[in-house]
């Protein structure tokens, strides 16, 4: 009886505190990567201690570095959500970059061309709503293509990224180009439409906390709503979900729209909160978002942590570069790639180990008359 209870308690703890395993995995991966990178840096002649100190202080050594890291994490979080939510629903949305760009350019167009003389606090909310809507609709295009023309979403979203990129280039050479210059860039957005800064002399705009609230909202949606459960079920096994009466296609459309909206919102926040204008080279947060989503294990809260981690890495590496240590920017990218790789490897190893343990005969749940059946359902 006691053994049976202990087994069930352990199973329950495993389910409810699985994030501890993931966190331990992340810490182990970081430690391994750090050791690897430090050794590599020492071998090629850099001072690992100086670099790590500068990296840590530059990313989190005070209010200003921390706010910079959070500002950097904001678009990563939203594009990570765009990828993570859709992946979880079984839709391989690789188009967060295109959705990000479309959201940004919609906000720029609205504030500089269509509503340049709008009253304060009119154009900005409209731009936020329109940017998110544009991102969502851009993502839906891929779903529509799949539904009516059987074009795989993974393919159409990749291609739509290029369509968005070249569309924006055309717009920045045409109707959205700033006057008085031959450069392909938009005019400056009027200051009244900028997102308010929460900490003076920094770029910490209120879009940053808003992005984290969006992540919490999606976590709640996934864990506390029927629709959230249905999208997860549709992602696990669409055929089984269909048999269970879940409208799989409708749920996937919905989640695609929401994901695209998130990426669009990322673009809006970047343009209204940080840059206040747009050029053709507007960052690659959409692609980085995929890595963030994978590192966060497709869980909105995990994605938030992964985005913060990536933000710290990016800002820290920037500070190292700014110092005289002259570490190439590529090193930060290598670190990020290694962390993901090691996390995936550790995850696969732990999953295999768990499988081996549960398949052993003596590890099977001890049955007794009084115990309930094995816990079923999906967490």
């Amino acid at each position, binding site marked *: 009886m006691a053994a049976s209870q202990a087994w069930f308690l352990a199973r329950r703890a495993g389910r409810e505190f699985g994030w501890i395993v993931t966190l331990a995995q992340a810490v182990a991966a970081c430690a391994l990567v750090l050791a690897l990178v430090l050794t590599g840096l020492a071998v090629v002649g850099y001072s690992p201690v100086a670099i790590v100190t500068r990296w840590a202080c530059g990313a989190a050594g005070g209010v200003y570095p921390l706010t910079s890291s959070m500002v950097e994490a904001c678009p990563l979080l939203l594009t990570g959500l765009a990828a993570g939510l859709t992946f979880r629903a079984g839709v391989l949305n690789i188009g967060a970059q295109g959705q990000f760009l479309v959201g940004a350019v919609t906000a720029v167009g609205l504030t500089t061309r269509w509503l340049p003389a709008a009253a304060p606090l009119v154009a900005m909310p409209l731009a936020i709503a329109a940017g998110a809507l544009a991102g969502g609709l851009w993502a839906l295009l891929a779903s529509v293509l799949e539904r009516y023309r059987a074009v795989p979403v993974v393919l159409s979203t990749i291609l739509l990224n290029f369509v968005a990129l070249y569309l924006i280039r055309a717009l920045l050479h045409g109707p959205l180009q700033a006057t008085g210059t031959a450069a392909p860039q938009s005019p400056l957005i009027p200051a009244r439409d900028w997102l308010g800064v929460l900490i003076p002399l920094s770029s910490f705009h209120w879009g940053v906390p808003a992005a984290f609230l969006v992540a919490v909202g999606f976590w709640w949606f996934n864990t506390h709503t029927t629709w959230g459960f249905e999208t997860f079920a549709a992602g696990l096994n669409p055929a089984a979900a269909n048999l269970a009466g879940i409208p799989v296609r409708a749920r996937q459309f919905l989640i695609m729209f929401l994901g695209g909206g998130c990426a669009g919102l990322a673009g809006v926040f970047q343009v209204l909160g940080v840059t206040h204008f747009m*050029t053709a080279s507007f960052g690659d947060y959409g692609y980085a978002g995929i890595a963030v989503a994978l590192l966060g294990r497709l869980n909105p809260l995990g994605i938030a942590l992964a985005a913060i981690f990536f933000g710290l890495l990016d800002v820290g590496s920037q500070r190292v570069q700014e110092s005289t240590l002259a570490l190439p920017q590529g090193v930060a990218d290598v670190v990020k790639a290694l962390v993901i790789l090691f996390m995936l490897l550790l995850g696969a190893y732990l999953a295999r180990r768990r499988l081996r343990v549960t398949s052993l005969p003596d590890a099977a749940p001890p049955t007794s008359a009084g115990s309930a059946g094995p816990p079923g359902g999906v967490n």
Partner: protein
Amino acid sequence: MTRAPFRRHRREALLLAVAALIALVATVRPAWATFKVALICSGSFTDGGWNQQGRAAIVRVGRQLHLHVSAVEHVSPVRAVNVMRDYLMEHYNLVIGHGYEFLMPAAEIAAEGGSTKFAVCGADQARPHIATLAFDLAGPSYQLGVLAALLTKSGKLGFIGGQAIPSVVACYRGFVAGARSINPRITVAQAYTSWDQPALSRSQAEAFIQQGIDVIYQNVDAASRGVFEAVRRADESRARQQSPVYVFGSNRNQNNNTTCGAFTPASAVIHMGLAFRRLVRAVQQGNFKPGVVPENMANGVCVAVLNPRLEGTVITAAMQRAVAHAAERLRNGKIRLR
């Protein structure tokens, strides 16, 4: 007993110590007195063109003038504001944004105050508090156009740019004007590919060569390798009776590139070091003036450089005279390029 000699020479010892202290202060430069300059690039320091050249120039100027130099690569306009603010907070004396895309972020940060001076390369607009270094390769491109018109057998020229930005479009316009000053019927095809995709620029160059274009002027930085490879392949496969295909370099002197140096008669070169040195000096002496600073043929920053290995063979004496004549007319203001 032992103190007596010291007492006797105490005055001399004191004088010696003071002299040593003065010498030490004179030789050791305190951190707060160091002139700090930063260069922000959007591309890679190994792009073989604009960014690599910018970094090399600022490092060289830093060594010559004993500056504390910081250079960062791969800074997108999205991150530029934060990077510039970092430098502002670290009290850098001069921050140079190496590309037109840094003009608006620089203007925003410069407006926040502080003693840091901001300059932007490659833009064509003035902004408050910002010195805009307008590198104008139109003049040297005009000279290359003259040379191209004299080299071509087909009467068809090609221009490949990384992106249609002001500095690149100026090159195209100068090239066309120069070529048409020799032969008004000459055609110049233009295409904009990418800064960092050699495969793309290579296929564009191959397409140009198939259309009969036999002189290509490229301004694509890291992607120039693709154009050079296409030209080398074309020249290797051509029969001796056919006229060869030539390619021109840009931004830095690419005449001695290892891929097809024998078919690169000239390059339009920016001497960035000269411009940076002048800028640093202006800040140090308190003469920094915001506004557009023309860096062109007149002040020797932008020049056309002929390949000395091809002078006398591919580049005949008449061609050299025509190019020199064009330079003279440009300097005298007899030719005005828009």
